């Protein structure tokens, strides 16, 4: 239970006690306040307050999708602003988002998917979306499963390496950080190696494509069809896989259906999707060593637990 609570993002709120009604109305019962204001929250009915210092946390980007309609792009691939790679790089880090409105829910979902220790600072319009999402996440069983990875990435900590990780996460190429090659993984990616020269890393997309080519789509533990704005976080161990799906356009538009392919045979499934309690997976198949299903709608976040 403690692990689960720690994984839930907290609300950083720098408003005074006179804003308590707005918090209560949104369904917020716990906040993190700057030290200068935390005292004023003591004794406020229905609201408990802890203390937090944003200066001691790493600021994350506001997750979103940039459709780049003003740019000619042959692939027409929207640009996803996500923080997955940063959260993977610093699993013990303390982070915060500063996001307005509906994006607060998306930020909370992203942080939860990666098990990040994160705060969400938002405005009045973001209170209800944030509270709804956290309420939903509270109902999702905790996840202490290890990440599913198809390859290992040796991160030298550089900006270049970060950009490559950014693209790998964005393209749903599943990896975990390693210090040395691991035979349990299908590939090892080290920038500067013969397969992945530094020269190529000037274009991180080229590295991501090379990894994909070397891995082959057939051997990828996860594929997503039907949307270019969904990033998955996959964890699991023998007999159980959890697929968390984050729609980075979720603050503005839902995804009308995605097809997901997971390597392995998992005849049982359980779905939980935010803002859509009755949703069911469609066209569920288990064959040829893979499990496929269609999620008919994805607002911001969904979690699919697959098991044998």
């Amino acid at each position, binding site marked *: 239970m403690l692990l689960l609570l720690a994984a839930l993002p907290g609300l950083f709120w720098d408003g005074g006690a006179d804003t308590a009604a707005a918090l209560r109305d949104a369904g917020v019962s716990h906040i993190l306040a700057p030290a200068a204001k935390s005292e004023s929250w003591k004794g406020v009915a229905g609201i408990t307050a802890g203390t937090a210092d944003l200066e001691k946390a790493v600021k994350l980007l506001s997750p979103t999708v940039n459709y780049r309609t003003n740019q000619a792009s042959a*692939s027409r691939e929207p640009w996803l602003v996500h923080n997955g790679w940063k959260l993977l790089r610093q699993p013990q880090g303390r982070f915060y988002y500063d996001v307005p409105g509906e994006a607060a829910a998306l930020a909370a979902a992203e942080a939860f998917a990666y098990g990040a220790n994160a705060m969400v600072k938002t405005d009045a319009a973001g209170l209800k979306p944030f509270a709804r999402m956290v309420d939903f996440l509270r109902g999702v069983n905790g996840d202490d499963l290890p990440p599913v990875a198809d390859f290992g990435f040796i991160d030298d900590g550089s900006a270049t390496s970060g950009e490559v990780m950014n693209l790998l996460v964005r393209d749903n190429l599943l990896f975990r950080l390693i210090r040395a090659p691991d035979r349990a993984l299908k590939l090892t990616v080290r920038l500067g190696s013969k397969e992945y020269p530094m020269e190529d890393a000037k274009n991180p997309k080229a590295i991501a494509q090379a990894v994909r080519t070397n891995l082959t789509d057939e051997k990828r533990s996860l594929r997503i069809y039907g949307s270019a704005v969904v990033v998955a976080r996959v964890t699991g161990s023998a007999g159980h896989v959890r697929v968390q799906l984050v729609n980075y356009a979720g603050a503005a538009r839902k995804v009308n259906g995605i*097809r997901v392919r997971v390597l392995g045979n998992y005849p049982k499934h359980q779905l939980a999707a935010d803002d859509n309690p009755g949703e069911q997976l469609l*066209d569920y198949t288990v064959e040829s060593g893979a499990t496929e299903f269609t999620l008919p709608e994805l607002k911001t976040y969904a979690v699919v637990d697959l098991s044998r």
Partner: protein
Amino acid sequence: MPYATLKPVDRRLFLHVVAASPLLASPAGDPVYKVVTKYAPAAKPGMPGPYPGQVVRVRSEKSIDSQADKVDRDIVRQMLSSGMRALTGDARNEDAWARFISPKDVVGIKVNCSGAPRICSAPEVVAGIAESLVAIGVPAKQIYVYERFDNQLQSVGYPKYLPQGVTVAAAESNRGSILGYDPRTYVETSFFGEEDTRSNLVRLVSETLTKIVNVPNLKEHQASGVTGCLKNIAYGNFSNVDRSHRFEQTNTRTFIGTLASTEPVRSRVVLHIMDGLRGVWHAGPFSNSARFRFYPKQLMFGTDPVAMDHKLIEIIEEKRKAEGAISLFDRSREHLGDTSDPNRNHYIREPGHVEYASTKGLGVFDNARILLKVIDL
């Protein structure tokens, strides 16, 4: 008659057959396609059908008033009857239609609305086809007029022309939604490293329809050279196809025939009636400029999409030549550019997709083996 949107069907069907193979020993650089379908070919596939290499062209000066852009519905009915009887050799209209479709069939009329509302499968033509189906005993409720995109379909206003009970349906009520497509029938390929490598068949086609009447337009196409029978049943029946032409050099040459020959499409498309009342000779498939529209005032009939599209190429080439525009077969990069100039194009056109489709068994490309019957009303 309300518009309907294809609903996903939550059925636990299991894929029995996974046919996965590169298409053919294609020239280096051609994409490799993996075709996944559980549908076996019919004993007598619809394409090229009973009339390989045969094309009937019916022309009537009165079919459309080119000044008012108004179609004469009665003349169109006469053209449909004349064309069907000429194709089959039957004296009666009903006998001609009954060769392809029985009252038990669930029939899709695949329209083309990519240039709508200015150019599309004319509602007068589509209505005439639906009336003919009803006349041979197909219940109206077993007839579907369908297209991929709901917004394009709605812009035409088919329902007011159609017999009561006919359904007008789109695969994508929300642009980009995959729910109207069959997740277990698809062609998979990677053209440029795109993440979504699947093009799935419209679910209505795989799960509901038993026969399809294809009603393309007579148009030039910036990427594929022309868009006629083949392209309308290929790109008009599968998702995620525009990825084939994101660059100047496209993959339309091989992709169109591959999709069109995928089962059950090849077996279920039994008849093609090309609406050439209006035409587009440049900057297609859209029709944003009146300058590039023309009025061929004809309908073409056949079961062989390759032979029909070969004739389509000839018509567009002739028109372009008359307009002083470069050939569809021009491949020089110096002609790439803004399509407001008829000698410029965004892509290198691939009219060779028609000949390629013949190698997939979809029809006859050799002009010496194509019989064209011309009727003037």
